[in-house]
């Protein structure tokens, strides 16, 4: 084995792609050739440097991707499409629930059903006979009933030994459609944006509502979600909807708190971008505080830049 062939084999050796006999020959060569040994060390150092560049996508990004996929699949599945795909009921409502309740295993369906039930009370009120509003209610069909098993136990009737009693929770699925500027529809979406069991529904609701932030209830909802929602994807969406109002003192107050306390760097980045777009003297103290404690390089730099633009000192004394 000569230096030329070793040079070509070093990457394969490093990645464990050489047959054992070639690996032995190469190692023997490296023991006696300083130049090739240096090349092997260089390969190892390059690899270590590249390892440090590797990124793990955030849980929020993965959740958003799953959510987007679910929506796209919904659109496809709602149109009769494939002969092989004629499932029990429609594809997506079940997918949607299970997609957002990943760690609950067999309990996810009852929980999902209870979330739907909670919304059901609202829709029942909104769609009661005589309720006004230009939205429509799709007709119910037997497939629109979701069942989940609440409990299974022996029947109490001693005269029928061996009989079991199965308690089912059933939830009816309804489809309501209408314009988002319709008060009843908007109330329903506002309620869905608080559905604590389903971040996917909250994300989708906030995504819809953020284009209507001129409405006061919607703006209040967005402020609440950006400050309180446990899911960073939802908080980011809500923040996106507030960008047009960064001059509003109430919005700035909430965003400042988000910048100081949110534990997700992506949200703090969005907050600092929004706040520094209209930086004023009222922000100096907050920005100085962020510079002192912030770990994220981008956020810190944006704050420093904003302070310098305002001719304010970067540190506190």
């Amino acid at each position, binding site marked *: 084995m000569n230096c030329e062939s070793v040079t070509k084999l070093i990457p394969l050796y490093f*990645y464990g*792609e050489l047959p054992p006999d070639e690996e032995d020959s190469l190692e023997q060569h490296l023991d006696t050739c300083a130049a090739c040994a240096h090349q092997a060390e260089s390969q190892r150092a*390059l690899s270590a440097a*590249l390892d440090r*560049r590797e990124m793990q*996508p*955030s849980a929020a*990004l993965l959740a958003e991707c799953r959510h987007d*996929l679910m929506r796209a699949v919904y659109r496809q599945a709602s149109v009769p499409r494939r002969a092989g795909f004629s499932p029990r009921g429609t594809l997506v409502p079940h997918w949607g629930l299970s*997609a957002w309740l990943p760690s609950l295993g067999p309990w996810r369906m009852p929980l999902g059903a209870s979330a739907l039930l909670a919304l059901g009370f609202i829709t029942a009120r909104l769609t009661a006979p005589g309720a006004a509003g230009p939205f429509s209610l799709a007709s119910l069909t037997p497939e629109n009933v979701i069942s989940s098993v609440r409990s299974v136990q022996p029947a109490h009737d001693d005269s029928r030994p061996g009989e079991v009693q199965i308690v089912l929770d059933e939830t009816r699925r309804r489809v309501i459609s209408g314009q988002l500027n319709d008060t009843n529809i908007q109330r329903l979406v506002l309620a869905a944006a608080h559905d604590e069991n389903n971040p996917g529904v909250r994300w989708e609701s906030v995504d819809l509502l953020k284009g209507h932030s001129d409405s006061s209830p919607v703006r209040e909802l967005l402020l609440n979600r950006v400050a309180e929602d446990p899911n960073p994807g939802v908080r980011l969406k809500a923040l996106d909807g507030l960008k047009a109002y960064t001059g509003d003192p109430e919005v700035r107050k909430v965003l400042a708190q988000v910048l100081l306390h949110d534990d997700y760097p992506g949200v703090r980045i969005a907050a600092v971008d929004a706040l520094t777009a209209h930086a004023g003297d009222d922000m100096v103290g907050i920005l100085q505080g962020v510079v002192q404690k912030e770990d994220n390089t981008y956020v810190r730099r944006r704050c420093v830049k904003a302070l310098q633009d305002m001719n304010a000192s970067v540190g506190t004394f």
Partner: protein
Amino acid sequence: MAQDAPGAVGARLSPKLDEASLIRAVQRGDQDAFEQLVRAYDQSVLRLAVNLLRSQEDARDVFQEAFLRVFRSIDSFRFDCSFHTWLYRIVTNICLDYLRKRKVRKEEPAVVDTPEGPLDRMNDFQEEAPHADPERNLWNVQIGQRIEGALGGLTPRERMVFELRHYQGLRLRNIGEILGTSEEAAKNCLFRATQKMRAELGDFQ
């Protein structure tokens, strides 16, 4: 010294589940099975797209397009290769298209120059370690731009082979199968990629 790259791809199926049965269930229209199949692979698919494209938006698009193609064409899967290979053919084809378009468009790089020095925009979107490591942040800022430049000098195919071998931990034979080429061609591709990077970056000691 010889080693496998960290983070080798592995489907995260429950041991109780047989993948072939799961795929057949999907082909029969079982949506639970489809969901399980997606979840077995979606993290590694997203990781590949994020690392390869260094763009959240592009990675998100690749993720959706890949699994939608799986959803549409699972009926045509005939078990003549592993599902992993079939899925990765789809994913790598989409990613290669993105890389080729990017070569033509000369898109904005992930690492950008700012008045305060180079900044990797993607650093802000990855999972944060429980305890931030200032040394790592500094390293990212100083070295990231050089590495991105070196990787940007690879052809899309070299980039893909390198990504699959180094970060996804796939064997070259499997990479060849995914990319529709031979193991030998994948070896040559990996060699060219590492040579180019070492020439560009010099020694990291």
